[in-house]
């Protein structure tokens, strides 16, 4: 079991500062991409897709344990495969996307649970998987968060106009010469990558909140898509900071605290009179 910060003794203060720094950086690293990318989840009504991917992440973790590879890599691979399979299944038009998502989500969750049950009991901490545990962040996690941040932000900047074009009207975008299916897949893979790193912080159950709440909070104050993405990133980082402070101060689990602070910011934003539209 990993010790919580509170149980650390005073002579390990330096270690604890390092630990807090690591935790804060990891939290902000996730928040800064989850916010902007979450705007697309909101615009494209993909909230359920986020949830389904989180279920797929479960399978990723168990694969990671089984094959002894870094869990973030395993989750990235499984979630990206999930997105590719979904795009493939969507080509047949008999079943709606939410049905397909439900099938894939629970199928992969069940396989994940089965394969976890085959591991020795100590190898996977189910609770931290479900609820997240930022306090178990190790330097290699931070490295992965950094790599994924750079990839996601670079692709978001390069593909910004294309992502918006397919969000507004896929067929108009296609007539204008965009490779709509590939661009949609790229967006889904980006979400899969962010889910892979967010898993560490808030766990399977609360990942979607990290994507959609900051975007929803940013909406009333935004006049352009870019503003909304930037505001969402800012709000997301703010929630992580507030969550860290509160959870440290009152010894509360971090993931839920971050989501609660996100939820509170959203409620406050609803009380402020709308500025635009």
């Amino acid at each position, binding site marked *: 079991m990993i010790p919580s910060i509170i149980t650390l003794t005073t002579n390990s203060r330096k270690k604890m500062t390092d630990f807090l720094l690591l935790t804060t950086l990891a939290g902000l690293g996730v928040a800064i991409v989850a916010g902007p990318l979450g705007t697309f989840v*909101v*615009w494209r*009504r993909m909230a359920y897709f986020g949830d389904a991917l989180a279920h797929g992440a479960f399978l990723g973790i168990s694969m990671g344990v089984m094959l002894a590879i870094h869990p973030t890599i395993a989750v990235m691979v499984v979630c990206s495969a999930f997105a590719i399979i979904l795009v493939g299944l969507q080509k047949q038009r008999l079943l709606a996307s939410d049905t397909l998502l439900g099938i894939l989500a629970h199928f992969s969750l069940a396989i994940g649970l089965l394969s976890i049950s085959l591991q020795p009991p100590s190898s996977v901490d189910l609770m931290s998987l479900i609820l997240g545990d930022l306090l178990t962040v190790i330097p290699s996690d931070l490295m992965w968060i950094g790599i994924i941040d750079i990839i996601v932000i670079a692709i978001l900047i390069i593909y910004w*106009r294309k992502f*918006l*074009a397919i*969000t*507004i*009207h896929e*067929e*108009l975008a*296609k*007539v*204008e010469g965009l490779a709509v299916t590939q661009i949609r897949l790229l967006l889904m893979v980006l979400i899969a990558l962010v889910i892979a790193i967010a898993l560490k912080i808030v766990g399977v159950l609360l990942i979607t909140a990290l994507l959609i709440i900051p975007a*929803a909070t940013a*909406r009333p104050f*935004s*006049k*352009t*898509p870019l*503003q*909304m993405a930037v505001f969402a990133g800012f709000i997301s980082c703010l929630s992580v900071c507030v969550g860290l402070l509160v959870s440290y101060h009152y010894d509360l689990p971090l993931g839920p605290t971050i989501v609660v602070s996100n939820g509170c910011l959203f409620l406050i934003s609803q009380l402020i009179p709308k500025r*635009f*539209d």
Partner: protein
Amino acid sequence: MKSHQALITLDKVSLSFKQTRALNKVDLSIYPNQILTCIGPNGSGKTSLARLILGLEKPTSGKIVRKPFTIGYMPQKLHIDPTLPLRVEDFLSIGLGPGEKLKNQVSSPIFLLIGINHLFQQSIHTLSGGEFQRVLLARALLRKPTLLVLDEPVQGVDVNGQIELYQLITQIQQEIHCAIFMISHDLHIVMAATHDVICLNHHVCCSGHPDLIKKHPEFLALFGAEAAKYLAIYAHDSEHNHTHD
């Protein structure tokens, strides 16, 4: 006009979805500088035909020969989710080609004709029906298309606005000399104004100049009652013979 001049030629093109046949052996050519309007009852395959021309559907049988050219498209319905904050300027910028700037286009005669420059900073969610259709038209024209495909361009616009919009489309065509393929419900305006008409009911019932179409038995069978109302108003010059054969 010879077929090798055509921008796009459909040769006995059929299109089926599962059990239903949307289009049956349609022959059609669109030539440079031509305005071609497609009319037909609801569910007659008009939008399917437009989608084939746009390359959004592949024909089930038959073949489509097209020259390489730029298409401008004005879709029938464009619902922008209110969760997406979007100004007119942002919406137009998204349709620009790589490296192009909206600034360079706004002073062009086309944009002055369309008359939406004062709306650029406005949210797209607060536009009136007529303003929105103009913005869509502007987006379709951004890439200087050789062929403009308009799917019911005046829907959601009041009657006066409809006539203005049709006039605008004609003016634009004269300005940039593109071809236009337009789907329309407005029989009276179509019959009075457009160059060529194709009457569709899964197959091509008849096509040609409005004066010829008016007398065609298949057209009268489809639109007889409605046509009688409008023809009396719009086709009253004495050279025309109004007796139906």
